[in-house]
């Protein structure tokens, strides 16, 4: 066991899988010698060499397309997209190719790639370093979407993703790379030092894809969240003294529907929290699923707390960010009825 922040945990996951499987390779803009703009791949090139860890041209089409070809050869590529905001140029390769290959070739070819990408706001990154595009990918059949919220999960989920034989989009909540975030931009930042999930085994372990974590057991309302928002939600209920059950989804597709259903049937109320814009965000799917499956248990409408339907603003970041005030209001509203 060691104390790790989320970057170190991700680095460790890459290191461990590369050590076990010579077919795992890491590629992307600035991931090689330099070790990535967030340092997630630091040290890997020195250890595993330039043919297994290398910088790429700046073309996301190419990064994903080349990774698919390598996957078809038999490698297990882990391409990085430097910011999730830059994944759109690669969308065709992800949707029409990676996600479809197994099905359209009836298993003749597969794309066992794991696309890593930092996502989300809270770092004054402006429009193009803050987006949360996960909702788009959850609509695409044939690709899995994974989002960790702690160093422990980040490592275990990333190992599971790399070892998975299907394409996985692994989105990393960059706001909490260095420490959990309680949603108060004006308070001192924390690090992972004292968080239990900052304790990370140095060896190989997996957190299975498709399993949620109930990070707080509670009775009065169920909060569904992932990534940074898990911590903001936890802090909000603590501040408000609400006995909420908080489920960290961890994998969006395939979803751990059992955990969700059991919890909402118990509490009768549900609030969904994500940073992504509201309309057609993954919260919509969650809301639809919850009302379809727990309709007769619901005592209030399912609420969504999300990013607003605007581009991510630079200066108004903290007015935009779904913070404690908005989560708190939603909780009060849901618990009023």
């Amino acid at each position, binding site marked *: 066991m060691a104390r790790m922040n989320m970057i170190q945990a991700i680095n460790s996951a890459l290191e461990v899988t590369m050590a076990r499987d010579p077919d795992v390779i890491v590629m992307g803009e600035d991931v090689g010698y330099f070790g990535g703009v967030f340092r997630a791949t630091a040290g890997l090139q020195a250890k595993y060499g330039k043919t297994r860890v290398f910088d790429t041209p700046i*073309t996301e089409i190419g990064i994903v*397309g080349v990774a698919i070809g*390598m996957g078809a050869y038999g490698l297990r590529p882990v391409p990085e997209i430097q910011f999730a905001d830059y994944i759109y140029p690669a969308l065709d*390769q992800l949707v029409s190719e990676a996600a479809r290959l197994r099905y*359209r070739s009836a*298993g003749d070819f597969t794309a066992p790639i794991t696309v890593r990408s930092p996502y989300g706001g809270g770092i004054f990154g402006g429009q193009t370093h803050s987006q949360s595009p996960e909702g788009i990918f959850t609509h695409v059949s044939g690709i*899995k979407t994974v989002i960790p919220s702690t160093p422990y999960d980040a490592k275990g989920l990333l190992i599971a993703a790399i070892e998975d034989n299907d394409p996985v989009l692994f989105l990393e909540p960059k706001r909490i790379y260095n420490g959990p975030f309680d949603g108060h931009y004006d308070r001192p930042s924390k690090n992972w030092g004292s968080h239990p999930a900052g304790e990370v085994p140095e060896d190989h372990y997996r957190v299975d894809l498709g399993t949620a974590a109930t990070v707080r057991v509670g009775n009065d309302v169920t909060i569904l969240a992932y990534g940074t928002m898990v911590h903001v939600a936890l802090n909000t209920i603590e501040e408000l003294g609400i006995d909420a059950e908080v489920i960290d989804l961890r994998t969006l597709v395939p979803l751990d529907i059992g955990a969700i259903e059991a919890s909402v049937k118990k509490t009768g109320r549900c609030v969904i929290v994500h940073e992504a814009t509201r309309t057609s965000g993954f919260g919509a799917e969650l809301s639809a699923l919850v009302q379809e499956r727990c309709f007769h248990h619901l005592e209030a409408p399912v609420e969504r707390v999300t990013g607003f339907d605007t581009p991510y603003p630079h200066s108004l970041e903290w007015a935009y960010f779904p913070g404690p005030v908005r989560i708190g209001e939603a909780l009060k509203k849901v618990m009023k009825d």
Partner: protein
Amino acid sequence: MTDERARANLQPLSLHVPEPRFRPGDPVDFADVAVPPVDAARRPDTAADPRSFHELAFGLVRVLELDGTAGGQWNPRLSPDQMRRMLRNMALTRAFDERMFRAQRQGKTSFYMKSLGEEAVSIGAAAALADDDMCFPSYRQQGILLSRGCPLVDMMNQIYSNRGDKLMGRQLPIMYSEKRFGFFSISGNLTTQYPQAVGWAMASAAKGDTRIAATWCGEGSTAEGDFHSACTFASVYRAPVIFNVVNNQWAISSFSGFAGAEATTFAARAIGYGIAGLRVDGNDALAVYAATQWAAERARTNGGPTLIEHFTYRAEGHSTSDDPTQYRSAGEPNAWPLGDPVVRLRDHLIALGEWDEERHAQMDRELAEEVRAAQKEAEKNGVLGHGMHQPFETMFEGVFEQTPWHLKEQQAQMIAERQAAGI
């Protein structure tokens, strides 16, 4: 809304929009298509610096003259047996296309795409590559599968989406996937295979393998961003890959000018990336063979990628959904100055005394029979009709390696609904 501004001394700009030379009804004259003699193009060493043979991107590598003789530095000097095999594969491709096109017209399937007039492009390349080199084709390289011995019945089952279709009816006709023949799953989205081929080639190089990759796209498809990403990656990592651009002059109804052909050749794209570029008479099976062999040798000796433009002509419609007489002169296919690839190789073999009209006719009869028999066999597994030849539950399988709950639930729901409805 144009701002009318005061640059009175400047001439107004104008927009150039390309226009092909012949439209329906126009008489066709291809006299300006340069057909250099076979000895015009030199053959550089496969290790040569690409900058030392830029002119090959603007000329035309040719081996077969139109009179049936062969010559020049690029002559691969194949044995008569090798050439007869190529001739047969081209004729087989043509017979297969003809039959399947007709099957679509008879309502037996939804779609078909011929490669009429372009057979040398696939067959010449397949002959020059090793059988385990990996191909990332577009939809018009059925000739590769036929060259590599893919059973006709398998191909037809796919075209019919019938019970025998190994792709389980999931793909549009001709979107084959044949890993055992080194033939990657064809995509409906143009040019996506280009970076994938580079990735496969890079993986092969990273692993110290000896196999190389080859990929194909049409001249129209070169405009996609994937083309550029692929060429850039291949140049940077010197990937052992062959890029083939099949310039058949048309992209559905748009002539090659809309892909940039008015300004330069497609082989010239190679110069932009500092990689080897060759422009080849695509109706000359021996030239295609020679260029592919050269590029394969270059790739296999870590010399990196080659881009080959195959200058040819799409003698038929784009697909069964297309009627080319709507947008081009009906005279074009016959006027094409580079002739018919089958006729050209046949005439060469005849000139060599290794073939004759009689044997050719006999071969055509045999191939027609072979195709007909395969068709009969395939149709035992059904033709498309309203589809639904596969068990419905298979629709949910293979989206992922393990089917997750939501797909299982949808599967169960569908079956229950169908039962409830008595279907």
